[in-house]
């Protein structure tokens, strides 16, 4: 048993860490966030040049052939820097869906560009009514001649505002919450009838809702088998959960470090506030939450690329439940420990706190995954 990264994995993580340290000061991040693009095109390009956007892809695509552990190493460092580039959406989810379900032609058309960072993908899997259930799909794809006509709305597509290609789920048969009958489509950003309502997110990134009004795509846009998208989506969402756990651990590490430092420096009543037992114990509770989250992130990474099974489902649901709760605890208690300064825009802690809460709103919150786990509990 050895829970350390191997030499290659450590080198990978160090590479990302160096890049983030060099390019992602807190001030620069605010600039990136407020820009038209919503992140740093230059940083994204550097991720590509260093091969970091290619980490999960096979070697023939210039990739690293990396598994959940490698992806998590990258995500942890991006989390530490609070990076807002669409790594999760484009590389992990977009690239992942095409890798798993795509035919040779689709892979050839899209994956090289995604792996190098030159093409950006985003995924539209949620809908306004779906909450976190990715099988709740009301967007419809009707066959018309050799084409599909898509109508519906996809919700909170992070990175969708600037994506070159969108992978969207749409129903080709069945009722609105059936697993059967969900299909995946590759929709170019400039498709006629595709509208985007773009917005900033509260944690500093950008996203959009997608409106599909008679968007017509050819049969070559169908990704995977018609009606069989649910399993692919579930599998890739699982990989993304493991990646997100890695990001969460990075964010939590910095949030804990910042709080610990503040407890040592801030003086009230003539002493550092870290002398007060109530704050000491809160700090220990935060670090204990971080350790639990770290353990579950490791476990999630270990199953992320394994074949689908109830065991994999259970672990990923458990992991997302734990990081959702740990993240909220560290966020709230960290703000409280900082007092007023923790409430300000100009101090970096608040931005870490916001990201932690929003991670719980991506790919299912702790309640959603608790329910999912409980269902699997009965099945076992």
């Amino acid at each position, binding site marked *: *048993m*050895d*829970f*350390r*990264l*191997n030499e290659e*994995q450590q080198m990978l993580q160090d590479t990302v860490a160096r890049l983030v340290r060099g390019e992602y000061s807190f001030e620069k991040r605010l600039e990136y966030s407020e820009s038209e693009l919503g992140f740093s095109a230059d940083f994204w390009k550097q991720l590509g040049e260093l091969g970091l956007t290619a980490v999960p892809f096979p070697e023939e695509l210039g990739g690293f052939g990396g598994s959940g*552990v490698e992806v998590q190493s990258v995500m942890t460092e991006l989390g530490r820097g609070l990076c807002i580039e669409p790594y999760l959406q484009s590389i992990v989810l977009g690239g992942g869906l095409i890798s798993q379900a795509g035919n040779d032609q689709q892979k050839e058309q899209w994956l090289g560009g995604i792996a190098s960072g030159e093409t950006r993908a985003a995924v539209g899997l949620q809908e306004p009514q779906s909450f976190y259930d990715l099988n709740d799909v009301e967007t419809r794809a009707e066959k018309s001649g050799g084409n599909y006509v898509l109508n519906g709305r996809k919700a909170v597509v992070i990175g969708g505002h600037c994506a070159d290609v969108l992978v969207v789920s749409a129903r080709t048969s069945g009722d609105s919450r059936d697993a059967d009958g969900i299909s995946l489509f590759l929709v170019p950003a400039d498709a006629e009838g595709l509208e985007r309502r773009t917005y900033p997110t509260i944690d500093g990134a950008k996203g959009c809702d997608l409106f599909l009004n008679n968007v017509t795509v050819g049969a070559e846009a169908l990704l995977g088998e018609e009606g069989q998208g649910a399993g692919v989506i579930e599998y890739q969402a699982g990989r993304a959960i493991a990646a997100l756990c890695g990001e969460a651990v990075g964010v939590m590490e910095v949030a804990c470090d910042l709080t*610990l430092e503040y*407890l*040592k420096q801030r003086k009230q009543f003539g002493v*550092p506030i*870290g*002398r007060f*037992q109530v704050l*000491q*114990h809160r*700090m*220990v*509770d935060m*670090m*204990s939450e971080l*350790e*639990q*989250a*770290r*353990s*579950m992130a*490791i*476990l999630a*990474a*270990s199953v992320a690329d394994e074949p689908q099974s109830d065991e994999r489902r259970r*672990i990923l649901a*458990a992991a997302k*439940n*734990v990081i959702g709760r740990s993240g909220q605890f560290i966020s709230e208690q960290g703000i409280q420990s900082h007092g007023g300064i923790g409430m300000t825009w100009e101090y970096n802690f608040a931005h870490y706190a916001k990201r932690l809460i929003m991670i719980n709103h991506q790919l299912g919150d702790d309640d959603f995954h*608790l*329910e999912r*786990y*409980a269902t699997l*509990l*009965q099945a076992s």
Partner: protein
Amino acid sequence: MNMNYTAEELAFRDEVRAFLDEKLPADIAAKVKGFRRLSKEDHQRWQKILSEQGWYATHWPEEYGGVKWTPVQKHIWDEESCRYGVPRSIPFGVNMVAPVIIKFGTEEQKQKYLPRILSGEDWWCQGYSEPGAGSDLASLKTRAVREGDHYIVNGQKTWTTLGQHANMIFCLVRTNTEVKAQEGISFLLIDMNTPGITVRPIITLDGEHEVNEVFFEDVKVPAENLVGEEDKGWTYAKYLLTYERTGLAGIGLSKAALQHLKELASRRLKNGKPLIEDTAFSQRIAQVEIDLMAAAISNLRIVASVEGGGMPGAESSMLKVRGTEIRQAINDLARRAIGPYAIPFVEEELDLDYDGDFLSDKNAAPLAAQYFNNRKLSIFGGSNEIQKNIVSKMILGL
């Protein structure tokens, strides 16, 4: 990153399983799994079997009859023995006083006491806490005054677990009142049969006799029973506590208790359906199972780090807190699972040989009592608040 056992470790696990399949008495395992009381005889019978196998003293050097297990092997033993329903080792002799004697004792003390611990001839208990010295242990007042080749001991110890069975007690006593509290403490080995010692039971809230008060009135203890140097006992006590803290998280015990809970919740009905299918209850079970999954990995990370030569520090204190909270949460759910039948306290059903009708579920009787009994988990071994103080000191350095 490798979370698997090696081939050797797997072979060791097979060996443990084969041993337990063959040697663990079914009646003892049934008591442990059903949370029934174990008698002194049960403990001694099992200890003898373990000793014969050479697996009793896992913290001792081989020259004293110990077995050299790696941290991973100890972990495997812990997991398997909890799963099989092996009685918890009474730690006071083998895991607490013995490491202190081995590290700080004289050759005579080693020759005299270690074999008797191995054979089960001596049953040790711990004389640390006093009515006025709990978490603040260094404020202890039991006095030992040197007179010729003896110490005369006066005072009172409390919370002495299973002291009613013990014939030996190791005590922290005050030998110097002129210096700082920590610097005037000595570590004494005392024969419980010495005149002047009285043991009185403390009945705990669950009706059990598990802990005691021990009174010392002009008790004459030979000076050769001093371990190490006079006034240096605090150092030895701290050394002992590092042994006590390992394993206090009780991950294996929680896994066994959770399995028990799930079986119980599959038998109990609510709204005509098994309780485990009830939305609220199944989510409560799910939450504690998830938390245990995380704690189990945290535990493995500590095991792997110790295996690699690291020293567990803040992590094991944090895990003690987390692990005890989880076990208490499982006990809480087991009590809830029997609904109104948590209220009757049917003592005869605690007996495994009971052959009458069960008031409700066959395993219901001990559940409420066990819930109350295990409130101790977050108090003993350094209360959870003390654990947090320890971690604070390490990380804040203030």
